[in-house]
């Protein structure tokens, strides 16, 4: 027998997907015509530039800042760095040091031999692409050949002590307890930093800084437990924010498996400028797509500021937009961790019917996606027992409706970032429910005139209405109207607009092309070229 099914009609589904595609299409010019400071820094990082000066400012920031100040960032940072490399016959990291510590002005170096620059560019680009491919292949091999992909829903937990070494202790314990996926939550407001901190960090608030070194430490720690347990343990971090593409690159580099990466989350929840985020998300998703990193979108967050029943359709609309953006970036559906959440007020009569309707709708709209299902958070209180019961039902709905990634609810959600025992209790709850109700979804069928079915169709219709309106006014205008998460943002407001730079016609960025070619994105290549 088949799993519980709504049997959505194909007409509205197709229509919804079509409209979403057009919404995203409409933004491709913005994406094509602009770069951002973070994209440029990403390119430099891909060239192998790491490290920071004594004030902890990363070299890549210093370089990009210099180029910006000089008004030449519109050409792309790579050109200047490559030119300097050729000029000094040094690797990019040496050039970076020279800029940072010896005040080398890149714009003062006369443009050298285009052929040499091109050759160097090709070598460096290839090296980076090779590394990313290697990391990707290693992971894929461990996951699907050496061991095997765990059964779904995957058990996903977070660690958030603020100290990467303490995080390791917690993460390893969680993995040993049975977690499939470990996310290291970032320190409060890291997403507002316009740079990525360097090195191992031990002081964060509500989370641990995302740094390349921290990624490496945690990846290694999980591999140790993986070996012990003969299974691969996935690692997650967060790429939303002002450094979206840089973190994506670091994730790809260090073997992360999932990245929180939403086309609108930063705009809505971190007040990051919308143009900035829209441009950044594209580049970061190219990297994810090329690296087989599963992105996780953040629709769950909408239900913390909006009502989960009233605004269910905004979740659906956003999922469709996120999907359309991801498709544009060449991402296969299975790497789309589209988000939704179990956030209905637990005191609502028949709330579970709504939850099931919404969960099934997401499941059937995106049959191939690796859906991410978020636990109750907003209605969690200090009553940890009620919370544990809510998490039980959340786990139940997940397995009943065939979700993929289960972000396990913590009974202490309203109190603190998780203690070791909280996570343990969460894993055990999931183990109990996933096993005890394993095939239950195959036992029942839903009639077309049932409340659940009607509800799902209604939410889809409402989502289509919003999408239609959004297509009409454009996504940015729609966000200005507070159509998503009830949060209003303006096109020129928020943080990071100063980091959006209109590309010159001579703009150069070898990676965009490299990724796009890898991903068979057949529309014109944007990176320009060295002329």
């Amino acid at each position, binding site marked *: 027998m088949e799993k519980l099914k709504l049997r959505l009609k194909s007409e509205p589904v197709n229509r919804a997907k079509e409209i979403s595609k057009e919404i995203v299409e409409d933004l491709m010019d913005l994406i094509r015509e602009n770069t951002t400071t973070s994209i440029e820094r990403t390119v430099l990082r891909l060239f192998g530039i790491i490290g920071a000066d004594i004030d902890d400012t990363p070299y890549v920031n210093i370089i990009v800042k210099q180029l910006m100040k000089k008004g030449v960032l519109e050409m792309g940072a790579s050109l200047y760095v490559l030119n300097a490399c050729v000029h000094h016959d040094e690797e990019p990291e040496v050039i970076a040091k020279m800029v940072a510590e010896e005040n080398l002005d890149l714009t003062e170096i006369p443009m050298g031999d285009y052929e040499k620059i091109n050759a160097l560019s090709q070598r460096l680009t290839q090296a980076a692409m090779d590394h990313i491919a290697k990391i990707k292949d290693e992971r894929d091999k461990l996951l699907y050949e050496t061991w095997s992909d765990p059964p779904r829903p995957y058990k996903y937990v977070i660690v958030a002590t603020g100290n990467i070494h303490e995080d390791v202790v917690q993460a390893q314990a969680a993995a*040993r307890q049975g977690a499939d996926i470990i996310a290291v939550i970032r320190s409060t*407001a890291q997403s507002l930093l316009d740079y990525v901190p360097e090195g191992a960090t031990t002081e964060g608030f509500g989370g641990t800084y995302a740094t390349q070194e921290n990624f490496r430490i945690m990846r290694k720690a999980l591999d140790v437990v993986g070996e012990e347990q003969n299974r691969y343990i996935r690692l997650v971090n967060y790429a939303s924010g002002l450094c979206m593409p840089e973190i994506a690159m670091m994730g790809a580099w260090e073997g992360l498996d999932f990245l929180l990466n939403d086309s609108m989350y930063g705009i809505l929840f971190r*007040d990051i400028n919308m143009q900035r985020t829209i441009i950044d998300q594209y580049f970061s998703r190219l990297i994810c797509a090329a690296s087989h990193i599963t992105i996780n979108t953040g629709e769950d967050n909408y239900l913390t*500021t909006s009502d989960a029943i009233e605004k269910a359709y905004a979740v659906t609309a956003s999922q469709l937009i996120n999907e359309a953006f991801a498709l544009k970036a060449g991402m296969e559906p299975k790497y789309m961790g589209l988000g939704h959440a179990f956030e209905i007020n637990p005191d609502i009569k028949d709330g579970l019917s709504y939850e099931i309707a919404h969960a099934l709708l997401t499941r059937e709209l995106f049959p191939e996606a690796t859906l991410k299902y978020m636990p109750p958070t*907003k209605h969690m209180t*200090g009553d940890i027992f009620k919370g544990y019961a809510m998490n039980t039902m959340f786990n139940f709905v997940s397995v009943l409706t065939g979700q993929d990634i289960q972000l396990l609810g913590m009974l202490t959600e*309203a109190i603190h970032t998780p203690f*070791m*025992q909280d996570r*343990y209790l969460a894993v055990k709850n999931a183990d109990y429910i996933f096993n005890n109700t394993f095939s239950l979804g195959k036992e029942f069928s839903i009639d077309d005139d049932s409340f659940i079915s009607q509800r799902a169709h209604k939410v889809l219709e409402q989502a289509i209405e919003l999408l239609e309106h959004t297509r009409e006014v454009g996504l940015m205008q729609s966000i200005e109207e507070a159509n998503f998460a009830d949060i209003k943002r303006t096109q020129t407001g928020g943080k990071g607009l100063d980091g959006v730079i209109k590309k010159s016609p001579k703009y150069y960025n070898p990676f965009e092309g490299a990724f796009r070619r890898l991903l068979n994105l057949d529309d014109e290549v944007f990176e320009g070229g060295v002329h």
Partner: protein
Amino acid sequence: MMIYPYGDTTNDGAMQLSFTLPLKASALAKEAAKSLVKKMGFEKTEVVSMQDLGGDFSFFVVYGHTTTGINTDDIQVVEAKFDHMDRVQVDEYIEEQIGRKLVVVGATIESDAHTVGLDAILNMKGYHGDYGLERYKNFEVYNMGSQVLCEDLIKKCKEVKADVVLVSQIVTQKNIHVKNLSKLMDLMEAEGLRHHIIAAVGGPRISHELALELGYDIGFGPGTIPSQVASYIATTKKERLENE
């Protein structure tokens, strides 16, 4: 009156505890859990569950009977005292007693991005069926949202001549809220604003006691409804005007 926790017999002192110890699950760990709880003044302790957490940690559930009681007469409750009026009453009160609109500036400050609590108090919609301050005729509300730097908040207060500043702090890990809230107070003092403005702070881990400690006039904890805040503002403003 001396009181003790209650399980099923008056003054039995029954309590439930759960915790993690940095020991592998073992007879030793179980005994350690028991000894720990005994050392804390428990009797008839039962380690009812011990579970290995992996990597030298175990989780315990313990039931025991504490010998510690407390005398309720010794308990000091630091509680804000004000009359709770409804929206219409507050509006009338302000009209009659103050005679002008009160200017309210609200923000979640510094690194904190949580707005739901603040919005619950300020937005039209309100909270738990109680309308927010924007709905009141006699409040002029500026909701600056979240992640507002203390400096920007103060600038705004000056600009709109705020009567009241409402600050929200939700994230409390490693006492980040104490740091943020102290910063605001220090700046307000430095700017000579503290006297003129009623300063209130709210959040799920905020108590009135903590608010006073940090130099605020009042603290609002979980479950606060807007009309409580409105009532407090109106009555306090009137008092202040009288005392001037």
